[in-house]
């Protein structure tokens, strides 16, 4: 018998794979969910196998009603859509659409924050206040707002209006693009990708993907860069700036993470989503004596607040509120049976939550007019009445406490300590000491070969990969090789659970050079810099490294690299684009959907490097991914003629 047939390998289910790679608390709760008969993300992933090959390769086009069309990747079937679009055009259009959706998501978050700043400045949203005048003044100057001698409300109002104008800007370049090093600005200008109005880029990007508009893959991909840059040096950056102004610039803070932060004897409220306008007022409401005494009346010992996803990162960074878990732990948190209310706003909230919650007493509450869920109670957060609304939400949770089903409760014991709260600004102090507020020590440590370079490891967790485990493996490999790691989002949560965000982690996991720096300065080898919009902190930290001098005249020359080893969302695609277009080599754990078009694949993995300095690499193995980043950093060190590593 001679027909070729690939030897069949027994496949490991996504669930079993997750059990071998997740943290112990997640393992325990995933098993618990299975015992209770819950259908969870791993089961749904398995049910989707095999996932559509045309879609995975970017070869499925649903843009117009001549289609839907798909291109045969093996060259036997159709090579063009009905309109004549080739694999190149279809893959590029799809990628641009995804980037535009991601950029839209972050930027809408930024707009929401800017609106809130305006309301606060006008005296309307009394639950919030201008917490950081220093940050307000610094940002206001960048927008050309007069600062000296003016009341903070006046400054904030003018700034908020100018920020909002950035979204609808019809002419000229975006204000925040000017934060980038001159070299990046020149590169963007040369290729015609300097971000303009934030909404303009998203709208133009989508317009270009309509049938019969842009039919040149390279020109479409340039727009993907521009739409990404409008996020990183636009919408997301505004979100971070306003959050710092309203809620205070983070300072290093101790916290705890993992499902064990849920408490058996207290009312557990879990906030889940992204925009801190909700979570911040919930924090305030849970601390009100009246609600705490109501909780005691209901038989609880108090009110315990914890977070999931990036809203958790926001209130961890500024308030030290514990994190219950990452994206993939949202269902597991419900499976504990002790979440009295899960309060959600926008982004990354699984539609499955309603089904899982229906097996428990948990009350799900949606709060944002953009995001409604069948079966969830909707209590809309209106900024001007934020505190009374937050009180109502907390009251709902407290009143739900007596409805817990004792037989269905199970809280894993695991928690882990961590330090978070690092920013572009406060790293000055951590690295330079209070009297040397400068990036000089970081640049010196890199130049001397004590620190090899800096890596940003960010993004989601995904059942396709190791359900969070990839982050831990990648980051361990990086710090072992003296690469200082900065993190955001669910990647930071994954590494926090593994103990990598404790200062002691330097002793256990870091290479000798990095360990010396961490010990001298008193920082962990892995710095948590916030939520996914706070990836902009990583951009501005790169700007400071360039400004300090000695390790390159542009971000593209710095010995740095980026990674999203378990990315899943369109937001990650937008982030990837702005990081790459800012000159940073970036490893994704699973590929962008480009492999159906060799030309598009070559563009994103090779040609971009010649244009903007950054490019993508796709590597599913997290340790191999780390090796790619280390090799890239080594090449940059060589190009800069830096000293050999101190302790090879």
């Amino acid at each position, binding site marked *: *018998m001679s*027909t070729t047939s690939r030897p*069949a*390998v027994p496949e490991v289910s996504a669930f079993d794979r997750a059990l071998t790679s997740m943290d112990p608390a997640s393992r325990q709760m995933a098993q618990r969910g299975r015992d209770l008969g819950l259908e969870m993300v791993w089961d749904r992933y398995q049910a989707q196998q*095999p996932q559509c090959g*045309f879609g*995975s390769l970017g070869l499925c086009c649903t843009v117009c009603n001549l289609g839907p069309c798909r291109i045969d990747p093996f060259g036997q079937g159709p090579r063009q859509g009905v309109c004549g679009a080739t694999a190149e055009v279809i893959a590029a259009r799809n990628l641009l659409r995804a980037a535009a959706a991601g950029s839209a998501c972050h930027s809408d978050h930024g707009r929401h924050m800017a609106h809130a700043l305006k309301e606060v400045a006008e005296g309307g949203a009394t639950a919030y206040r201008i917490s950081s005048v220093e940050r307000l003044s610094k940002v206001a100057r960048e927008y050309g707002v007069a600062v000296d001698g003016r009341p903070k409300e006046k400054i904030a109002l003018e700034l908020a209006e100018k920020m909002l104008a950035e979204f609808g800007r019809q002419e000229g370049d975006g204000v925040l693009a000017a934060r980038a090093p001159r070299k990046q600005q020149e590169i963007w200008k040369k290729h015609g990708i300097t971000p303009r109005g934030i909404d303009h880029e998203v709208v133009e990007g989508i317009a270009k993907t309509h049938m019969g508009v842009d039919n040149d893959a390279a020109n479409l991909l340039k727009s993907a860069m521009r739409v990404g840059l409008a996020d990183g040096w636009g919408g997301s950056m505004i979100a971070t700036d306003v959050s710092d102004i309203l809620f205070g610039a983070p300072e290093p803070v101790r916290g705890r993470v993992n499902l064990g932060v849920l408490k058996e004897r207290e009312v557990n409220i879990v906030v889940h989503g992204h925009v801190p306008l909700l979570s911040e007022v919930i924090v305030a409401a849970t601390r009100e004596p009246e609600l705490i005494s109501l909780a005691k009346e209901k038989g609880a010992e108090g009110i315990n607040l914890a977070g999931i996803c990036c809203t958790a990162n926001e209130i961890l960074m500024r308030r030290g509120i514990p994190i219950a878990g990452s994206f993939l732990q949202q269902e597991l948190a419900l499976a504990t049976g002790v979440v009295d209310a899960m309060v959600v706003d926008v982004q990354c909230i699984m539609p499955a939550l309603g089904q899982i919650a229906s097996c428990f007493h948990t009350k799900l509450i949606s709060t944002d007019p953009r995001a409604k869920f069948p079966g969830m109670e909707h209590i809309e957060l209106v900024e001007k009445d934020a505190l009374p609304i937050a009180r109502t939400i907390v009251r709902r949770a407290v009143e739900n406490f007596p409805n817990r089903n004792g037989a269905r409760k199970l809280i894993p014991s695991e928690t882990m300590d961590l330090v978070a709260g690092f920013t572009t600004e406060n790293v000055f102090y951590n690295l330079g000491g209070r009297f040397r507020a400068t990036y000089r020590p970081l640049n010196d440590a890199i130049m001397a070969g004590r620190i090899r370079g800096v890596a940003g490891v960010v993004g989601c967790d995904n059942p396709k990969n190791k359900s969070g485990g990839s982050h831990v493996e990648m980051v361990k490999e990086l710090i072992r090789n003296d690469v200082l790691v900065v993190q955001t989002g669910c990647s930071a949560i994954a590494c926090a659970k593994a103990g990598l965000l404790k200062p002691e982690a330097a002793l256990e996991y870091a290479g000798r050079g990095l360990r010396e720096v961490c010990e001298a300065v008193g920082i962990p080898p892995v710095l948590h810099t916030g939520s996914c919009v706070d990836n902009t902190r990583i951009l501005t930290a790169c700007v400071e490294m360039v400004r300090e001098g000695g390790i390159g005249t542009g971000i593209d020359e710095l010995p740095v690299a980026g990674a999203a080893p378990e990315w899943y969302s369109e937001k990650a695609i937008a982030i990837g684009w702005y990081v790459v277009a800012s000159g940073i080599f970036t490893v994704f754990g699973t590929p962008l959907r480009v*492999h*159906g078009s060799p030309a598009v694949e070559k563009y994103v993995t090779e040609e971009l490097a010649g244009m903007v300095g950054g490019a993508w690499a796709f590597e599913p193995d997290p340790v191999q991914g780390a090796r790619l980043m280390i090799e890239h950093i080594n090449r940059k060190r060589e190009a800069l003629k830096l000293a050999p590593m101190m302790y090879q």
Partner: protein
Amino acid sequence: MNGMLSIDVSRCVSCKTCELECAIAHSEAGTLFAILAAGEKAQRRIVVEPAGQLSVPLQCRHCEDAPCVAVCPTQAMHRNGQDFPVLVDDARCIGCHACIAVCPFGVISKSRMGKAVVKCDLCVRRLAQGQQPACAAGCPTHAIRYTTPEEVAREARRRSAESFLVAVERGSTR
């Protein structure tokens, strides 16, 4: 071995996942991305054929009195016994394409690698490992199922009996 692929055309949504999964299962590289990386000319043994409003996944029926086996001058097209699938022995095939000419379903193709012909082998290696044929395993709507002729007949009888019952009940209430 007495399996067969049963097709429910009413469930086929023309997604062509079966075509991709078939080509991948019979490739050297083994995965979608590896095939593209290697530039391998992977080849499907199943084709989703449009027929009016419907789409019909077509592959070798492994006929009992198979014209392709009968016509093959070198016995390259063969069957290892009753109830076994019809297979091609590449080493014996001289590429005369007589089998392609006589196949009533048009499901034998020239090899893209310039070697012999290719056709559905019922994924015999996957079956030996306890797995379903790739097309059936991959079909998201279960339009393609790996089953037995007896089971197909049994299901048809059950449906027939149920409709008979409905007719009798209607008659009795008249």
